[in-house]
Every structure is written in structure tokens, then in C-alpha cells.
């Protein structure tokens, strides 16, 4: 299983773009109002920093995954704890995304379809791609999906230009201030920070040094796309309405009307999102399975799929809590996963790892 630099690029782009566009714009508008673009730019810079740190950390041991090198760097016990922290993130997020996927699809597309059908379809697809293709299969998928997503987003932005109202950008900064803008930046940052999964992926690249370039460019471009879409939503709807809609970017697409016949394009937005969600899920699914297998020293990680797939299905289907559906991203993701999993641990690993390297290089006795 090998990934090329280009695949890493598209992997990161697809992994991020759709989900951030659909889910983050509304919460950011709530805090940062007409200054969303500042919030997104801040989040973009920090997001790129996170992926840079993650890849740098992984490049210290380019042939090993997080599961192995965290133990090597921090010792057996602390290393295992860290791996468990990540596994909690991966396992829980899969259930949440699956549920988000079913909820959204039922709301906008298939109101009478029971959610188990959607969940089962998605889980089967996940099993299919991870079992047959592994990480390489996911990477190849992204090379196809990524350009489709990029093209669709660009097209939708162009179509909605007619409805732009530049006055929605004003006044800059006075209504909000530093704290609300930074607060707003947290949500997209917590999504962009998911690129920390590069800790797992670097070891699968054929030329690890290409991974850094691919990942950084993928996140940069994704962040840029998302910022443009957020500004586009702001220009069409203004901050007040966008903050109250759950998926303002979706509503902007359904607002498009060109010459009275290019209308009802929301299906394209749904397509972009489902492609992106599929990639996101399969990447997490792969990481969860592979990671668990390595942790418990299971020889063939693929056998684990038969246990985890039903688990995720049940997690999404039978944990009937609203806070898991609507509050997960707002609380766990922003206040726990972002500072610990996405920023804290990679930095710790990088620091300790580089100190160890120096110590190892320094001749003994000096």
C-alpha cells in the first residue's frame, strides 16, 4: 500500500473541503458575523501549521505509523495512552459523521428513507473500499473525487456571483472584535486540524519527503476554497440569516437562479458533500482499524473490519442522544480534540522526538 505525493494532496483536499463548507459556516457567522473571512483566514494559517507539525513529527520516523513511533518516542505506557486518545477520537467521530450523513440526507433528499438504509449503505461502501483498496484505494478515489469537488465548488461560486451584495462585508471589525473572531476561528480550525491524521499516513507514502508538500498544499487549497465559499455565503445572505441557517452554503446553492432556468442546483452541493464525507469516513475507518490492529498486534488488520463495521453502524444507529448528533462538534471536537489531539500531542511528539534524536546523535560522555 503506497501513496504518491499527489494522492496525499487530493486526499487532504477531499478529506477537508466538503465537510467544512457544509458544517462550519453557520457557527462561525454566529461569532464573527461579517468578519467571517478574517476568522477563516486565521483558521487557515493555523490549520496549515497543524498539518506542517503533524507531517514533520511523522517524518522523524517515516517508515512507522503513529501507533509505533509514539511508543518509541514516549515509552511504552505514555505512548499507549496517546494512541488511545487518538483511537477515541477516530472511533467517536465515525459514529458522529455517519449520523450527520444520515440526518442531512434524510432532511434534504430522502425524507422517507429510514436511516438504517443510509447507514448500512455507507458502512458497506466503507468496508468495500478499505478491505479491497486499503489506503491506496482511498487515495485513488480522492484523485477522482477531489477535482470533481473543486470544479463543482468553483461553478457554484460563479453562479451565485449575481446575487452578491458587497455591503454585507461592512462594517469590518467594529461589530465583533478580537475575541469573537478568534472564537469563530475555532470551529473551522478544529475541522482543518483533522489533518493531524497525517501522523498515520506518512508511513504509507512511497517518498515520505513528498508528503509534506502534498499535505501542506492540500490543506492550503482546501482552506482557501472554504474561505471563498464562506465569503460567498456572506455576500449573498449577510451574517444574520447565515448564522441562523444550519447549512447556509446549501441554501446559497438552492438560492441560485440564472435566467430563470439554472435552478435547484442543491443536488450538486449534496454530491460534493457526500463525496467528501465518504472520503473522510473511509480515512478514519482505515485509521481506526489499522491503528487498533497495530496496537493489539493483530497480524492482519483487515480481520478487524468485521468487528468494527457493525460497531460503527450501531454507534450511529442506536446511540439516541441529541448531544451526540448536535453537540459533539461544538464541545468535544473544539474543546478537547483541537487542543489535545490536533495541537498538543503532535507538538509534544515533535519536541521529545527531536530532543531524543539530538541526544542519540551526540557522542556519549559529552
Amino acid at each position, binding site marked *: 500500500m503506497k501513496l504518491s505525493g499527489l494522492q496525499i494532496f487530493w486526499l487532504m483536499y477531499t478529506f477537508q473541503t466538503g465537510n467544512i463548507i457544509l458544517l462550519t459556516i453557520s457557527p462561525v457567522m454566529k461569532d464573527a458575523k461579517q468578519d467571517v473571512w478574517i476568522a477563516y483566514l486565521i483558521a487557515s494559517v493555523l490549520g496549515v501549521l497543524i498539518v506542517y507539525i503533524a507531517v514533520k513529527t511523522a517524518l522523524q520516523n517515516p517508515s512507522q505509523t503513529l501507533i509505533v513511533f509514539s511508543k518509541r518516542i514516549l515509552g511504552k505506557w505514555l505512548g499507549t495512552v496517546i494512541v488511545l486518545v487518538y483511537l477515541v477520537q477516530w472511533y467517536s467521530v465515525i459514529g458522529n459523521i455517519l449520523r450527520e450523513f444520515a440526518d442531512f440526507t434524510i432532511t434534504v*433528499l430522502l425524507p422517507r428513507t429510514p436511516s438504517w*438504509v443510509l447507514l448500512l449503505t455507507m458502512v458497506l461502501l466503507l468496508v*468495500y473500499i478499505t*478491505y479491497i483498496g486499503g489506503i491506496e484505494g482511498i487515495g485513488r478515489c480522492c484523485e477522482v473525487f477531489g477535482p470533481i469537488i473543486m470544479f463543482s465548488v468553483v461553478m457554484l461560486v460563479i453562479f451565485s456571483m449575481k446575487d452578491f451584495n458587497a455591503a454585507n462585508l461592512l462594517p469590518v471589525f467594529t461589530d465583533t472584535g478580537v475575541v469573537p473572531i478568534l472564537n469563530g476561528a475555532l470551529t473551522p480550525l478544529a475541522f482543518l486540524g483533522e489533518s493531524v491524521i497525517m501522523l498515520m499516513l506518512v508511513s504509507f507514502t512511497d517518498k515520505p519527503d513528498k508528503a509534506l508538500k502534498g499535505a501542506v498544499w492540500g490543506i492550503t487549497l482546501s482552506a482557501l476554497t472554504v474561505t471563498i465559499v464562506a465569503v460567498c455565503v456572506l455576500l449573498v445572505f449577510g451574517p444574520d440569516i447565515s448564522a441562523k441557517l444550519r447549512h447556509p452554503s446549501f441554501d446559497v446553492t438552492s*438560492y441560485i*437562479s440564472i435566467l430563470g432556468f439554472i435552478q*435547484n442546483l442543491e443536488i450538486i452541493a449534496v454530491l460534493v458533500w457526500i463525496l467528501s464525507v465518504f472520503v473522510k469516513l473511509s480515512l478514519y475507518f482505515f485509521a481506526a482499524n489499522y491503528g487498533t490492529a497495530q496496537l493489539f498486534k493483530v497480524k492482519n488488520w483487515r480481520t478487524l473490519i468485521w468487528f468494527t463495521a457493525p460497531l460503527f453502524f450501531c454507534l450511529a444507529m442506536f446511540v439516541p442522544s441529541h448531544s451526540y448528533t448536535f453537540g459533539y462538534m461544538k464541545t468535544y471536537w473544539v474543546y478537547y480534540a483541537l487542543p489535545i489531539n490536533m495541537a498538543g500531542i503532535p507538538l509534544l511528539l515533535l519536541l521529545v522526538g527531536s530532543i531524543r534524536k539530538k541526544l542519540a546523535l551526540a557522542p556519549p560522555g559529552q
Partner: protein
Amino acid sequence: MKKVFSLLICLVILTGCWDRKELNERSIWLATGWDVAEDGGVEISGQIVIPANVQTQGGGGGATGQGFFAISAKGKDVRDALQNMQAKLPREAFFGQRRVIFLGEELAKRGVKDKLDINGRSADVSLRTDIFVIKGGTAKEIITIANPLEKSPVIATLKEHQESGGRGDTAYLNFLTAANRDGITPSIPSIEITKSLEGKAAGKEKSPNPKLLRLAGVSVFDKQLKMKGFLNNEENRNILWVMGFLKKMTITIKDGGGDKSIDLRSIRSKIKPTFDKNGKPSFTVTLTGEGALTENNSGLDVTYADNLRRLEKEFSKQAQDHVQQTINKVQKEYRLDILGLGEILHRHHPNRWKKLKTNWDQTFPGTTITVQAKIKVKQIGMSGPSLLYRESEIKK
């Protein structure tokens, strides 16, 4: 292994689907009307396409009947009313093509804040929709009126709205935005029932003088989203011009020696706030417009530059006076900032606005607003002076 997988996936994907709905199982809904029911709930009326009668292809004959029918039901809220309506509707209502919302005058007066949520919650309707308050009527009446030119009267309404240079299908979003802001009070276009020939009793269906819908200006709402009153079509145009929405307009000068008209096409507005030393704002509204002289019943020969300049001045003066009057009326009669001048302050002087916004409703009626209009004649048409004047009568 692969085969098992493919089989499994085929099983799930290819077995048909819960939400398959053929077109002939759906009733395509074009317009929704909101009225007050006697018990205080809502009465929802809908205009639904009769598919067999709207097919235009297939040669002459065939589809000759009415392209739509109207239906209504009462309920506590919209969904409740729709449930009651479904009891007499054989097909499931489909709202994806809903283009217009009509609000009965009575409902608008009682307030719409707790009535219209469905338009933002339901996934199949777009926020792009036209919305009207019915002047002196109910939505239930409006929704039955056919248009001789369009199979669906709703399309006719939309086109009327766009052709007359108004907000068109962005009206609902405009209303929502205004309802969410401090510096502007919402307004909704209004519509009324009239007949094709003025002053004659309307004939029956298919007569050459049918009932028609006519734009009737704009309705003014307060912050609680209760309707306070109407402005007529001319006042509406003046207001839209100030707000920057207006796309076209005709100005006519009444003159003893013959009236003249200009069709404005390129229309703009610029609002500049200034502050006195107490921080009290005043506004200068600069209106510009360019267009073609389309009627000149006087003996004025417009091929002479001086005459044109004089005309431009007259047009400008007229526009200036009329817009000023409209603004004065809004300030005195309604005391509500439907022009969005507060938003102008908010955008360009946000720090001053923070102090002004709490009292804006009291400040606005007493604010000085000066209007300046600059109108340019770009084309004069096919004749210099009117062809009906003799050489000796022409003013050069």
C-alpha cells in the same frame, strides 16, 4: 470476496427506493397564500398545476383548460393546515417549485413573526421567493385569478414584478434581512386585484376584460413585523431608487405646453451621512439616472443641446421633488426607517451607530434627508421636435 461485496452493494443500492415519487404522484405547488382563519389560526391556500393543461407541445388543440386550480384549508399553523388540505388533495404536495408567497392584508396587520417559519425550515423550498401583501384582500381570492398570457398566474405575477423594476424574487430575502437588523425596518411589495380595462366591470373568465393582479406599491412593516400601511406604486419606485433596488423607471413632466417622458435605465443611488457637532446625523441622497427621451409632446426641438440641458434639469427637479416628498411621507406618516438609512450608518460609521442604534426609531423621523437628483438624457429617439408641430411653433 469481491463478488460477495459487489452483490451486497447491488442488493442495497439497486432495490428501488423509499423516496421514489413519480411526477404523477405529486401535485406541483406554485404559490402559497396565508390568511387569518376565524379562530385565529391560519388559512393556507395553494395554487397547484394541472399538468395535463400546461403542456405546450404536441400541436394545436389539446390543452385548452385552466392550467391550475386553487385549494385551501385551515389549521393551527401551516403544516396543520396542509394536513387538513391533504385530506382533499389526491397527490402529495410538492413545494420545490413554489415561487410566490401571498399574505392577506388582515394577516399582515396582525403580524407575521409567528407565521412564516416554514419558509426557512423546509428543505425543498428556496429562500429565493417573491412575497406580496394583498392590498384590500385575502390570499384566497388572489390565488384564483388566472392570467390570459401565462398558464400559471404566479409566473405572471413574478414577471410583472420584474418588468416593473422591483425587487422580484429577492423580496423575501430582503424582508428577512431587514427583520434581523436594527438600522432598517422591513417592507414587502404589495399587490391588488384589478381588471384589465380600468373603470369597467370585469367580465367572466375568457372575456377580453378579465380580472388581473396589479402591483400596488409596497407595504410597510414595523419591528414586530406587523404591517402599518401601504405606499403606492410611485412612492414604492422612489423608495426602491433610494435603496438602490430600482432597475427601471419612467419620469414624466406635466407641462402645459406638452408632457415629456424619459425612460431611465441606468439608475443609481448614493447616500452620504454627515454629522453635526452633537453627533446628530443627516443624509444627502444623490440619485442618478440615464435614459432615453421617449415622449415629447411639446414643440421643443431636442436636437439642440440647450433644450436638452433644460429638459434634464426639469426631469431632475421633478425626480428630486417626488423622492423628497415620499421620504417626508415615510418620516412623518410611518416614522419607520424602511430606507435602511440606519444600516448606512452602521456600515460606514459603526462606532457612531453603536450610540445611535438604541434610539434610532425616535431619531429617524426628525432626521434631515436631502435629495439631489441628476438625470441625463442619452438618447432622444427618432425625431427632433414632435412631428405634429409646424415649423413656426417649434421652440429652438
